[in-house]
């Protein structure tokens, strides 16, 4: 009788264990999620980085390439939380941000770091900032469909193709046209006297599990950030992603030199960069790390070309018409 009881208990335990096994990666992620809920207000970028390392995607297993390095291959992005629905009569509705739970107040995140400019560039920066209508200004080279440069391009969506000798990044872009970079990991050096280009010349090597990339020969025709910003993942499953606006990370010289660090942890890619500009900066700019999450099997890189039709109609702020919010109607006078 006692044996039957134990056997029945063991059978139930085995059945429970079987149905409790994670059936898909998101469930596995839930099982490894931190038991403590992240705070509603993240006080600093250092705290934010620690929280990202504890987040569900980062807690998953990191796959390896055949050469033993972390496998960076895949489509990386952050869901923008937009919703598309359709009715039986063929009607379609797009709701910007509609996939997010608007009833919950969003978590508050810290501002990203900014470069420190020499005083002689203050007037130029002041002029740019005063001409911005909210996050928008036609001074931004993105409005001419020019590539975003480095590190601005590395905000996703993007696809990484990794081989032992090259790592290729295919940028989709949410604003300009598609572009690509080839990062040589075969031991070569930069060319001796390269022409500048929008995305520069890149050589990389592995330091432990991090791909370290040295980027030179960058044209001064791009910006470092600013304007429309980029999207970072939320810290919890189900939380909407959040927008980072690098509002003053703007101009640079053709002496810009960037050291990038790409680290895959589970299903999260951390992008770190240090930007040196001996002409314009008082010290190197350590970019606040960015994070991308790997796309599911249905997510693919999307064709994006760019045609500039907006620029000629963008207005600058005036006393009577200063920026209030992105889509809201202004109160009538």
């Amino acid at each position, binding site marked *: 009788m006692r044996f039957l009881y134990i056997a029945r208990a063991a059978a139930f335990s085995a059945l429970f264990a079987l149905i409790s096994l994670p059936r898909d990666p998101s469930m596995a992620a839930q099982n490894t999620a931190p038991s403590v809920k992240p705070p509603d207000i993240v006080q600093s970028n250092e705290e934010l980085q620690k929280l990202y390392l504890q987040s569900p995607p980062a807690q998953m297993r990191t796959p390896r390439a055949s050469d033993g390095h972390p496998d960076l291959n895949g489509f990386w992005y952050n869901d923008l939380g*937009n919703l598309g629905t359709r009715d039986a009569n063929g009607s379609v509705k797009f709701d910007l941000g509609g996939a997010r739970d608007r009833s919950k107040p*969003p978590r508050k*995140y810290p501002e990203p770091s900014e470069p420190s400019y020499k*005083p002689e560039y203050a007037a130029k920066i002041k002029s740019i900032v005063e001409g911005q209508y*909210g996050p928008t200004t036609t001074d931004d080279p993105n409005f001419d469909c020019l590539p975003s440069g480095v590190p601005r391009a590395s905000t996703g969506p993007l696809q990484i193709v990794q081989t032992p000798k090259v790592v290729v990044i295919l940028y989709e*872009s949410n604003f300009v046209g598609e572009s690509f970079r080839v990062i040589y990991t075969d031991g070569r050096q930069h060319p001796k006297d390269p022409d500048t280009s929008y995305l520069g010349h890149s050589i990389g090597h592995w330091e432990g599990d991090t791909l370290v990339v040295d980027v030179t020969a960058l044209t001064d025709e791009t910006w470092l950030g600013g304007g*429309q910003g980029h999207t970072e993942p939320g810290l919890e499953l189900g939380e909407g992603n959040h927008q980072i606006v690098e509002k003053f990370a703007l101009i640079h010289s053709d002496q810009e030199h960037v050291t990038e660090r790409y680290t895959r942890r589970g299903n999260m890619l951390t992008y770190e960069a240090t930007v040196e500009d001996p002409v314009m900066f008082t010290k190197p700019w350590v970019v606040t790390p960015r994070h991308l999450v790997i796309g599911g099997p249905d997510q693919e890189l999307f064709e994006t070309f760019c045609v500039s039709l907006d620029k000629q109609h963008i207005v600058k702020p005036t006393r009577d018409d200063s920026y209030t919010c992105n*889509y809201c109607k202004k109160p*009538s006078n």
Partner: protein
Amino acid sequence: MINRNLLGRLLAVFALLSIAIPAIAHHSVTAEFDPSKEFNVTGVLTKILWVNPHVYWFLDVKDESGKAETWSFEGNPPGMYHRAGVRKDDWKIGDEVTITAVAAKDGTKHLGFAKMFKYQDGHTIVLKVGGE
């Protein structure tokens, strides 16, 4: 140096926005269009540019004399529609459609930011932005 008052005001606005409407800033629609100036226009869809930074639809609209004029309408970036399941094929060249849009701030005629496409069979394509 940067005007600290202006910087402070801008920071306050950005801080407020980062709380109020995360994940939707792209470029300010209000930097180009006036949301209080809404209008409707009916015509034939002649062309779609499914491109960054914004999708454009072109409409031939007949004026009072019967002469066709081309109107253009801006939308969001194609990637945003694509990942939400809204397809370029949801629009057909040659369709007659009534577009509800908001007008350009700089006074440009025949230009708008598209909010709704209404077809003769009753179906609609609504492009809702900013928690309206």
